[in-house]
């Protein structure tokens, strides 16, 4: 493609992203002249550049939009939802034209006369909608355009991202924080951003993503080689290589960190479409919704960013559709009429936490129970024993939607299970807490990058394996004399750990590897306590080595159908080891997780009041619960 056209498409698409966010902001702050000026300028720029490329069709649409914006800027037209909808409609048409332009590399034939006439009539009349109500007509157009534009914009993003770190930050500041700050703060923020922009923008360049990916792969190889060299060095008592190798090691680490940074993008990039979506939803559903975002500048690997974009959008849609109540309903229950959805992202111990919370009606536990029963997810007796939290987790099951009416937005019974699967695929976890009548909070924990992970190295039957650190809760050394004992309940080993009973899985049995002959059965056992979702269990291993940063390589295709492994890696000594997938182990060991043994393992049914000094009757009843659960689990197998 022509360089100039390519550049134009990239620039225009970036501008369109900003415009979407800023227009919605404007609707909430109609008096923000600076914002308005910025919006006007962006449309103006698109129109202005069209002339250089000979794009009359695009130019005329942009011109009509600019015309309306000009009237708004001059105060002839007020910032009303109708006005904003009309301008958004114009932007959608521009997006469509950009998409066509990218596909065909030239303008296509087509008619925009109706839209242009509508825009012009609106501008002329000083804000009177044209005969057909544009806000209604708009919805379908918007929805369609949104989808198309969204899909193609992603493609463009694939081809090139702003590479240098300063630019990434800048993009985040420009696009990201839509609705957080109060108006005065926002004005300040805008000018502060501006000042920052000037100092960094000239120092950034655009780099192809493939180049960065390639660099990352090569760095990974370099790190592995470095690790091998360092391993060799450790075996030498005195070596001339010591100093240079240490320097090499140091530089390699810095290089790796540097390259990782180039891949970092603010999470706000994944959020930029949300204000527009929430606006559209609130119009469609007749609700009042305020979207607050906190921590949009939090950076994470662009690969992770791409992967969480869709789940995040889906969850926000869900919150808007199912979480937030209708205004009169909110009023009746004494809440502010406008519902709030809050996105909050922050770093925590090598991970990124994203909270999505709403102050809506919360999950209806009774309805979930009912659904779970009808769909055969759980038996009536088991249901009795589940904690509130456990019942709520059912929303992550396929085929469980509590929305009474299936709206066009969500409630089709697919969704949360897909969200959960997608997040777990990238080594993340998602949990939810909900208080009926007060709202729901989803808590997503995802790794900063997929390139390297912290993993616990363990040994089982003479083979080494890695367990992703994100799932590891603690390590326990169990023996007959220690306070942590392994007990057998109906042939199923469980670990008594701080008054909780934890189901155990023998890695050796799961992997079906033969024990070494000399590995006499000692009464000491290493147990790695792992958590998968809300389900905690112990994996019995032979030895524990320690934690290491490993470079994850995908599982070879021949092994891919074995759910126990999530990848492999090369260690410092050059040996190739497999990375275990705790999800897979949990599933393989008979889906202990839901809901039966989980009930016994859960704190509430066991903890309160149970300790080493409990009476026999208490103890018996506990064992009874466990037995029932295990029998139920067996029956389902």
């Amino acid at each position, binding site marked *: 493609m022509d360089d*100039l056209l390519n*550049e134009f498409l990239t620039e225009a698409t970036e501008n369109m992203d900003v415009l979407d966010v800023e227009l919605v902001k404007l609707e909430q702050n109609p008096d923000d002249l600076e914002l308005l000026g910025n919006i006007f300028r962006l449309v*103006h720029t698109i*129109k202005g550049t069209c002339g*250089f490329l000979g794009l009359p069709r695009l130019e005329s649409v942009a011109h009509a939009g600019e015309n309306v914006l000009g009237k708004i800027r001059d105060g002839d037209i007020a910032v009303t939802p109708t006005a904003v909808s009309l301008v958004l409609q114009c932007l959608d048409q521009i997006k469509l034209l950009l998409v066509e332009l990218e596909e065909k590399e030239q303008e296509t034939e087509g008619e925009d006369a109706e839209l242009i006439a509508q825009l012009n009539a609106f501008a002329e009349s000083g804000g009177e909608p044209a005969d057909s109500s544009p806000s209604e007509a708009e919805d379908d157009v918007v929805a369609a355009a949104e989808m198309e534009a969204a899909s193609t914009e992603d493609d463009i993003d694939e081809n090139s991202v702003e590479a240098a770190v300063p630019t990434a930050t800048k993009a985040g500041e420009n696009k990201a924080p839509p609705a957080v700050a109060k108006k005065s703060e926002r004005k300040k923020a805008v000018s502060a951003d501006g000042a920052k922009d*000037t100092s960094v923008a000239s120092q950034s360049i655009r780099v192809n993503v493939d180049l960065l990916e390639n660099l990352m792969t090569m760095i990974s190889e370099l790190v592995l080689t470095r690790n091998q060299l360092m391993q060799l060095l450790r075996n030498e008592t005195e070596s001339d290589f010591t100093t240079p190798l240490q320097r090499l090691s140091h530089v390699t680490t810095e290089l790796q960190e540097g390259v990782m940074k180039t891949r970092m993008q603010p999470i706000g990039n994944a959020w930029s479409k949300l204000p527009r979506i929430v606006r559209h939803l609130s119009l469609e559903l007749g609700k009042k919704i305020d979207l607050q975002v906190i921590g949009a500048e939090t950076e994470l690997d662009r690969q992770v960013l791409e992967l969480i974009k869709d789940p995040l959008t889906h969850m926000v849609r869900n919150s808007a559709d199912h979480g937030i109540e209708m205004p009169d309903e909110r009023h009746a229950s004494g809440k502010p009429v406008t519902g709030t959805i809050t996105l909050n992202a922050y770093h925590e111990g090598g991970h990124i936490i994203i909270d999505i919370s709403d102050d809506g009606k919360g999950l209806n536990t009774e309805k979930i129970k009912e659904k779970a029963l009808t769909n055969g997810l759980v038996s009536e007796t088991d249901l009795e024993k589940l904690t509130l939290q456990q019942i709520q987790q059912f929303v992550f099951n396929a085929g469980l939607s509590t929305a009474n009416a299936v709206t066009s937005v969500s409630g089709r019974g697919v969704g949360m299970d897909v969200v959960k699967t997608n997040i777990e695929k990238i080594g993340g976890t998602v949990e939810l807490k909900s208080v009926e009548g007060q709202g729901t909070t989803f808590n997503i924990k995802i790794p900063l990058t997929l390139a390297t992970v912290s993993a616990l190295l363990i040994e089982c039957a003479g083979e080494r394996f890695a367990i992703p650190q994100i799932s590891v809760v603690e390590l326990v050394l169990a023996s007959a004399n220690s306070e942590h004992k392994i007990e057998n309940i109906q042939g199923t080993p469980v670990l008594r750990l701080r008054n909780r009973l934890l189901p155990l899985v023998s890695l050796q049995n799961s992997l079906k590897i033969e024990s070494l002959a000399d590995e006499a059965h000692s009464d000491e056992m290493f147990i790695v306590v792992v958590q998968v979702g809300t389900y905690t269990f112990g994996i019995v291993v032979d030895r524990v080595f320690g934690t290491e940063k490993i470079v994850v390589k995908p599982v070879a295709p021949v092994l891919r159908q074995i759910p126990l492994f999530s990848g492999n890696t090369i260690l410092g000594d050059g040996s190739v080891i497999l990375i275990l997938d705790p999800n897979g182990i949990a599933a393989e060991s008979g889906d202990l997780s839901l809901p039966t043994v989980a009930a016994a393992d859960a704190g509430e049914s066991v903890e309160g009041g149970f300790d080493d000094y409990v009476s026999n009757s208490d103890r018996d009843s506990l064992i009874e619960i466990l037995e029932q659960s295990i029998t139920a689990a067996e029956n389902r197998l």
Partner: protein
Amino acid sequence: MKSCLVVDDSRVIRMVARKILEELSFEVIEAEDGQVAIDVCKSKLPDSVLLDWNMPVMNGIEFLLALRKMPGGTDVPVVFCTTENDMDHIQKAIGSGASEYIMKPFDSEIIQSKFSQVGLI
């Protein structure tokens, strides 16, 4: 080789301008808004400026006024270049110290003629 500072917030327009000006043997420096342009001028004054009007952070007029106040800033020919074609805009630009005024979209021919009018070619 004479230098020309191209001030425009659109990368596309800077690309077009660079192509044309480099063909006319100019060394091209780019700035995406008035403030960046001022920073550039502070370190070294360019031999000429091709200036957009509507930009974020600092617009073309503000930059022009600031440039004219800088030491030696009055001697730098500034060619204003925008999509606005009404007399108000033209008069305001010239009044603020612009040497020439051209319309977008511009081409090699118009740039060449205007730059020669201000004695650069």
